[in-house]
């Protein structure tokens, strides 16, 4: 399997009045073709910033944006904006945002939302574009006569399906799903997740699935990345991370989830996530960690367990 995305030592810092916010601080991972990585972490851990870094949706106050991002074998971080926009963004990599439900223009028809990128970016004739729009709409489970409806006529679940259709219209390699279901009802949420599972199998697309809800993340994840204070603290196959998490933070997250089918005791993680302006020296989880020891004042390395499972914790490496 070839990798569609290869990220190395990615950094994205913001400049604010209070100081430099280290939102994404040295992240590296790869995604193989058709695999899904779930990014799990609390709010403020840098999940959405990582997505922005990949899409290059950068605000004006960026103070550092460095590292390496290879999409489909091509280094894109150094690419100039024009070329990135023409070849990569919304073509190879697309994005379904948290506020996707509100991102449709209520006075545009569904069809216009779908054909706009095809006509503007690919110069496809309108007739062909409509054909393609029809095909994609049916694929996301919406009857084709909805092409001619306005988006305000759609329910929340339908809008989300349209947004997913838009993200798929250019046959991307990677789709970033940023909390795609958290604004939806439980039942609608399940039907959207079902759709994403089907699309994944049919189209072989890779997802980066961002969520704070570790239970929902397991609905799609082949690999899980647990993010804390701008860094990955654990990364590995879902068979390992959900079942035998290694990092104290991953363990804490899994223990804090109420489960429906088993009666496990619940425990929450003490304390609050650190400020990303002045993160703690050494291990960033140190102030909240129940297993803290003196060596934790030094920054822990990413320690490998086998070829795929990594953890950033001194418990697993001697010094």
């Amino acid at each position, binding site marked *: 399997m070839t990798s569609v995305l290869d990220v190395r030592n990615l950094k994205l810092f913001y400049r604010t009045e209070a100081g430099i916010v280290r939102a994404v601080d040295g992240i590296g991972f790869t995604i193989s073709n058709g695999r*899904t990585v779930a990014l799990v972490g*609390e*709010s403020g851990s840098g999940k959405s910033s990582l997505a922005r870094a990949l899409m290059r949706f950068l605000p004006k106050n960026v103070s550092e944006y460095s590292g390496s991002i290879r999409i489909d074998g091509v280094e894109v971080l150094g690419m100039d904006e024009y070329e990135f926009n023409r070849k990569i963004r919304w073509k190879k990599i697309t994005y379904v945002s948290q506020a996707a439900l509100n991102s449709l223009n209520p006075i545009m028809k569904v069809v216009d939302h779908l054909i706009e990128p095809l006509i503007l970016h690919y110069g496809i004739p309108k007739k062909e574009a409509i054909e393609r729009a029809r095909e994609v709409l049916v694929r996301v489970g919406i009857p084709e006569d909805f092409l001619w409806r306005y988006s305000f006529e759609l*329910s929340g*679940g339908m809008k989300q399906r349209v947004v997913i259709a838009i993200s798929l219209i250019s046959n991307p390699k990677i789709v970033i799903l940023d909390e795609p279901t958290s604004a939806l*009802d*439980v*039942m609608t*949420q*399940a*039907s959207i*997740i*079902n759709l994403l*599972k*089907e699309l994944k199998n049919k189209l072989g697309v890779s997802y980066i699935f961002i969520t*704070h*809800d*570790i*239970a*929902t*993340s*397991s*609905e*799609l*994840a*082949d690999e899980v990345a647990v993010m804390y204070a701008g860094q990955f603290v654990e990364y590995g*196959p*879902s*068979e390992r991370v*959900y*079942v035998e998490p290694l990092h104290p933070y991953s363990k*804490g*997250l*899994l223990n*804090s*989830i*109420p*489960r*429906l*089918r*088993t009666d496990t005791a*619940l*425990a*929450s*993680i003490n304390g*609050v996530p650190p400020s990303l302006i002045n993160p703690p020296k050494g291990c960033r989880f140190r102030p909240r960690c129940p297993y803290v020891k003196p060596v934790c004042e030094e920054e822990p390395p990413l320690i490998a367990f086998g070829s795929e499972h990594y953890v950033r914790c001194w418990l697993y490496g001697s010094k």
Partner: protein
Amino acid sequence: MEVSNTFSEKVGKDSTAELLMVKELRVWYPIRKFFSVVGHVKAVDGVSFTAKRGEVIAIVGESGCGKTTLAKAIMKLVPVTGGSILFEGIDITKASKHVIRTWYSRNVGLIQQDPYGAMPSFMNVKTILEEPLKIHHIEKNERERKIYEMLTEVGLTPPEDYVGKYPHMLSGGQLQRVAIARALVLNPKLVLADEPVSMLDASLRVEILTLFKELQEKYGLAVIYITHDFATAKYFSDRVIVMYAGQFVEVGNAKEVIKKPLHPYTEALINVIPDPDPKNRFVIRKTLSGEPPNLIKPPPGCRLAPRCPYVMEKCKIKEPPNIAVNELRLVKCWLYES
């Protein structure tokens, strides 16, 4: 003032095990066209239940099922169309404004879903917590003491650090602690918690709910916990009521209902909730087709009939009764007719 005290003492002595009894409650919102009423949205349509002192009841359902309207009706925030709400034996749908303001509002607390929206941004924590105490004519020294006590109780310590803060200076979790403090500051007997943690991070939810549960046990509060999340209902409530399209479809012990749901809607709702498990990604979950019915003109028989996988002819014509499967379990479904 004096009237209310004697009134509450009188009622307090006459304490029965049932704190709250809701009977055949209906809340219909009128739809107006010009000056005439052309129809009703039957948001809550004939629900009955009782809450004992110190009992935690979870009301579970999707958005639009009427759970928040039910809470609003109990809080006296919306006019009631029919039925009664008895609190310590007094029908609050018929009680005078004076009784509601001086006695009832003191005994019922509310925690809202969105802590950011529920806290006035121009008031600091002290003013927020002081307001209900002022309204109920509590003396200044006592107010001060109570505010500090409540802040300590909800884990915002030391309280001196928090009294001067404004909502935007606090995190979502801290704000929700303030909301709990505000709901409990008058020592109520009943607290309505409307999705108190759904806006918070998954990892924070348990922390806030555990705190709330501790305080609930300490003060012997009755709680109506409104949520769409079965998993937290299982851990934090004694009984669960499942609501669909303005009606109760299943009532029972929380753990029993989750282990063995009887109503097709409960079954479907439980089926779609994942636990963290790597095998989930290979499973396509069974969902109900379609969407909840329009509450202006709900289906004539069972309201789930158009979506139900077990639908029978009867279901489409006749509304099912509440069938008692055993002492603790009620199901509104023709499948359980004996």
